[in-house]
């Protein structure tokens, strides 16, 4: 066998040969854009955005080409300028996009900063004015918000409880070395939060904590199975129990993954259900609970229905990777295999209807919106009847970033290069922003549509 150095050199050469460089020109443009932002200041940038000078604004904001050319879209009826712009308001480009900002009370809270100076900031969504900032550390994200508190945490803790109104620190909950928090759920006066040890090779068991929300004091801790990490989704709390799903820490670290039910008062495990998934994979969505059944997607591609009292598996579907939009009128509606929307009988799992939908190159989402299901993919948003699966409209607005959000008479969609408002009834595009690069799904709060862009800016739009 060749020695280690030779093997490393050969492997590095293989990787170097497969690398795809964006190129020095794009890099210089990106660097110039950052330099301009530093020099230009907030006032000038805001004026340009209000003036709606899309191309110039885009160059100032980004200073580089989009990573991929924009999809063919239906031309927006009207170009909407943002009412306000807040710079330095969102995490940098490489932060996980579902953790960039959150609506909390009448504020938008954003954990910002990739370096050691990371802060959690709160903004008034009506004006974009910063209400407060707290130095919560690098790569922090908002774990949960509610009950007058925002809980933020750097990548490996501690958990920091902040007063939502003032940003003042109320408490800290320290984590062990290498222990990283997942998203949390606030129910009543308790924060339920899972933590994992995500370093590669680590097999320490994940821990679920219940903390007193006001003081940060631990009420209980439940240690789960070695060799697993918790899913990203926040715990689902209801019926006196806490549901969390796990996955393998790495290949072969555990025989399979499970859905765990913990007593909400004591943390004692009531049951665990086998998810039949002996491989690693992470879902951002937790189980959906309705009428005594929990519907949970497994990495193996199964959709499982589990009795929430006993953990007994009631039915399963193995038709492709499921993304559950929700449960309505006795149907579990899910995007399956990325290319079809399926209505399952909630009790038996029988397929009542299925509708083909386009597959996209970016993320796909499916959400319930009243009696409709909104599905993204293939550069479009599709609205389908939740009872029959029949398509109502298709709006070719481009690949979505995050899930579509329905509010009032509109559906708001962040695409790869703009924010778009669609008429909820007809699917007609009502307005679109100038070119920006959204980093996450829009937030609808206090009569504003707030979107974070990948250059670290928050923009507030009128509905």
């Amino acid at each position, binding site marked *: *066998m*060749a*020695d*280690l*150095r030779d*093997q*490393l*050199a*050969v*492997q*590095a*050469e*293989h*990787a*170097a*040969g*497969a*690398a*795809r*460089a964006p*190129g*020095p*020109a794009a*890099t*210089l443009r*990106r*660097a110039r854009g*950052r*330099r301009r932002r530093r020099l230009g200041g907030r006032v000038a940038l805001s004026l340009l955005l209000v003036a709606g000078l899309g191309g110039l604004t885009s160059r100032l904001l980004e200073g580089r080409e989009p990573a991929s050319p924009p999809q063919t879209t239906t031309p927006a009826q009207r170009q909407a300028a943002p009412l306000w712009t807040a710079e330095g308001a969102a995490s940098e*480009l*490489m*932060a*996980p*996009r*579902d953790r960039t900002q959150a609506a909390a009370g009448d504020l938008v809270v954003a954990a910002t900063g*990739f370096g050691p100076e990371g802060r959690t900031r709160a903004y008034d969504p009506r004006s974009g004015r910063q209400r407060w900032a707290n130095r919560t550390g690098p*790569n922090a994200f908002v774990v949960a918000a509610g009950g007058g508190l925002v809980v933020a945490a750097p*990548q490996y803790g501690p958990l920091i409880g902040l007063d939502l109104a003032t940003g003042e620190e109320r408490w800290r909950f320290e984590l062990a070395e290498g222990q*990283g928090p997942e998203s949390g759920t606030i129910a009543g006066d308790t924060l339920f939060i899972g933590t994992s040890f*995500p*370093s*590669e*090779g*680590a097999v320490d068991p994940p821990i679920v904590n219940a903390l007193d929300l006001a003081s940060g004091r631990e009420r209980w801790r439940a240690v789960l199975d070695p060799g697993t990490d918790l899913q*990203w989704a926040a715990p689902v709390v209801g019926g006196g129990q806490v549901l969390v799903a796990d996955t393998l820490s*790495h290949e072969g670290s555990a025989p399979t993954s499970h859905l765990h039910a913990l007593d909400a008062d004591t943390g004692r495990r009531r049951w665990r259900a086998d998810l039949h998934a002996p491989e*690693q*994979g*992470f*879902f*951002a969505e937790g189980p959906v609970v309705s009428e005594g059944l929990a519907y949970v997607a497994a990495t193996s591609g199964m959709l499982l229905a589990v009795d929430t009292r006993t953990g007994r598996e009631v039915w399963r579907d193995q038709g492709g*990777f499921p*993304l559950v939009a929700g449960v309505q009128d006795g149907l579990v509606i899910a995007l399956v*295999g*990325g*290319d079809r929307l399926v209505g399952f009988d909630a009790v038996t799992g029988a397929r009542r209807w299925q509708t083909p939908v386009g*597959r996209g*190159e970016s*993320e*796909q989402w499916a959400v319930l919106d009243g009696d409709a299901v909104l599905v993204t993919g293939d550069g479009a948003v599709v609205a389908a009847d939740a009872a029959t699966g029949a398509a109502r409209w298709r709006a070719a607005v481009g690949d979505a970033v995050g899930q579509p959000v329905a509010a009032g008479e509109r559906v708001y969609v962040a695409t790869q290069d703009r924010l778009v408002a669609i008429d909820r009834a007809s699917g007609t595009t009502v307005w679109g922003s100038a070119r920006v690069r959204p980093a996450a799904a829009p937030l609808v709060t206090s009569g504003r549509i707030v979107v974070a862009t990948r250059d670290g800016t928050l923009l507030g739009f009128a509905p």
Partner: protein
Amino acid sequence: MQDEHDFEDFYAAVFDRLVGQLFLVTGNLQDAEDAVQEALTRAALRWPRLRSYHVPEAWVRRVAMSLASDGFRRFRRRLTVVVRLRADLEARQAGPAEVPGLMEALRALSVAQRKVVVLHHLLDLPVEQVAAELGVPVGTVKSRLARARGALAARLGPATRAEGLRDQEGAGNHG
């Protein structure tokens, strides 16, 4: 303009090589490219000063290595998406060919261990310089190297173990 020409030459010379090195740390080509591209963007901002450095590539590598520390959670997020769109996997960027057993063995190490392995065994940096690059004590580097070599030897076989032992003995001669 001369600065920009210099930077373009520099970029062309180092991008692929750095991605190759970072791949050994991240185990994922996209993460390696992201880290190197971000490090080069930061280098472009500082290029008038950086170009006078004896080895500006070392600065970029250090920044990229630092970024790679935060890569695991991003990788997990990406995996979430990939799981959702598994049928599209084949259409995505192909990973590089892998030396049999090597990447599996490297992935079993911590990111910190992989960094010392790459800097010391691939780039032949003495232990003291590895410590300086990573901002950790020399003893920490030695300890990580010892554990990494032990783990690699267990997976890759005795030839690696022998090589590792030679290295350990000779570590003091590098600096």
